[in-house]
């Protein structure tokens, strides 16, 4: 039995798609506080103003992240959402979980929370919506002790690292994303659970340039698998594709008739750098021009594979649109070996160089990508101790001036003017 009249929300149930309103009504049958979610949302639709207060002081002992305090500003009218805190639970690596684990988690959330969830937040966490302050510690105890799971990151912390399925199931993964993600998660427990930075900081691990965890769009440090030798070609398999004996795209998009496979139209003409061509029945690739777009490999997975000398490109500075709009991360290191044997030392050194600089130079609530934009890429590269390379150049220069530093000029800035004038009359 509905607790509040919700004519505006009810309208949202009349469309052709599943409605969150229907979901919340169903949940409210067992969790009555959910009626107050609908009530307060209806009021916000009517008054066109939010009735959630901003942030709060909740948390669990010893942690400075993982719980987001949410309070309603009309607790008397909507007591069920007086406290409605969000809990972020770190997702299992690659989001592999068993149904047993999910059932346990949902049982726990029915016991201590509203039972409402978001799967997953953009960082990857399992988001549990709506609990009271007094339930946080018992929930945290059961989660960590009975289920051996942990909270994720929130606030100015290192956010829960995320990775694609990597080499566990994907033949294209150029490094072990799960091992890298797990190692860095354990290495940076303090940064995940206690605030450390001017603002949030994320890293994500994708095994190949298909970038299945959207590292390039979301993470401050994007570790994206790549190779530095040549795409491996099986010419016999190429012939099979050309003869239409192998399904293109691994059989995806097969729901309608696209006609016979046309390698020229579907692969070669779509190469963004025009680096492919046919010589008779053989497919040729000028690998020096390849930008790792993955299109040809995606279309002909049985004929083409990433090269064998594998590692990752490291890009820095992606963010979603809050200030100045969204931006992708910028390529900083074209190739780095990502190896467990040295405990990912090179990657860790790279990350900590960024942190040391950003913690000092970054403004409050400024993502590292915004700091980079503010100081300029040349300054950032200098901080990182990286020599500029052509891949760092985004566009031809528009500023005609070249500013030399004294150490870059032979003889420095101290010159004997008389000596100079002997050959250059005033």
């Amino acid at each position: 039995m509905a607790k509040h009249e919700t004519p505006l929300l009810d309208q949202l149930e009349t469309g052709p798609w599943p409605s969150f309103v229907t979901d919340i009504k169903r949940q409210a049958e067992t969790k009555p506080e959910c009626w107050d979610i609908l009530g307060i949302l209806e009021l916000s639709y009517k008054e066109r103003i939010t009735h959630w207060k901003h942030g709060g002081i909740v948390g669990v002992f010893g942690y400075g992240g993982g719980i987001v305090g949410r309070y309603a500003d009309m607790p008397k009218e909507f007591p069920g959402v007086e406290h409605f805190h969000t809990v972020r639970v770190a997702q299992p690596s690659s989001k592999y979980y068993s149904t047993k684990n999910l059932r346990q988690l949902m049982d726990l959330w029915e016991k201590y929370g509203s039972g409402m969830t978001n799967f997953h937040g953009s960082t990857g966490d399992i988001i549990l919506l709506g609990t009271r302050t007094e339930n946080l510690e018992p929930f945290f105890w059961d989660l960590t002790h009975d289920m051996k799971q942990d909270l994720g990151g929130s606030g100015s912390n290192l956010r829960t690292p995320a990775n694609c399925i990597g080499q566990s199931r994907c033949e294209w993964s150029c490094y072990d994303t799960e091992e890298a993600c797990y190692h860095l998660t354990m290495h940076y427990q303090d940064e995940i659970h206690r605030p450390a930075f001017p603002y949030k900081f994320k890293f994500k691990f994708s095994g190949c340039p298909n970038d299945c965890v959207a590292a390039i769009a979301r993470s401050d440090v994007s570790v994206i698998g790549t190779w530095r030798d040549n795409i491996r070609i099986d010419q016999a398999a190429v012939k099979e594709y050309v003869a239409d004996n192998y399904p293109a795209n691994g059989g995806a998009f097969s729901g309608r008739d696209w006609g016979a496979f046309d390698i020229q139209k579907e692969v070669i003409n779509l190469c963004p750098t025009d680096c492919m061509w046919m010589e008779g029945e053989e497919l040729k690739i000028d690998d020096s021009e390849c930008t790792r777009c993955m299109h040809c490999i995606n279309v002909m997975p049985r004929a083409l594979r990433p090269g064998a000398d594998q590692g990752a490109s490291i890009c820095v500075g992606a963010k979603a649109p809050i200030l100045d709009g969204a931006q992708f991360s910028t390529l900083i290191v074209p190739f780095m070996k990502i190896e467990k044997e040295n405990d990912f030392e090179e990657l860790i050194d790279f990350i900590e160089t960024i942190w040391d600089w950003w913690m000092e130079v970054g403004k409050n609530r400024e993502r590292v990508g915004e700091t980079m934009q503010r100081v300029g890429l040349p300054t950032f590269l200098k901080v990182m101790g990286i020599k500029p390379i052509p891949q760092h150049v985004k566009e031809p220069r528009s500023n005609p001036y070249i500013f030399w530093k004294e150490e870059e000029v032979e003889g420095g800035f101290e010159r004997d003017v008389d000596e100079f004038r002997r050959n250059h009359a005033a």
Partner: protein
Amino acid sequence: MALEIDALKDAIEEKATKSPKPQLYIKDFYKCDPDSKPRVIKNVANEMVREGRLMFWSSGSTTMYGIPSRIQNEEG
């Protein structure tokens, strides 16, 4: 020369007590000791939270620090 840990804690507490704002960013504490590395100040501030001398306030996306009695308590 960087302050000793106890002196740094006192300086942070004084800053958090006297600041017109009840909640401060971690960077606001850097000025308590310009000779200490940001990471040292962060570690000390977090230790003070464990000791109950400071408290976290989080919007969900940003975390700030404050003296517990000065942070507005939403739970009344």
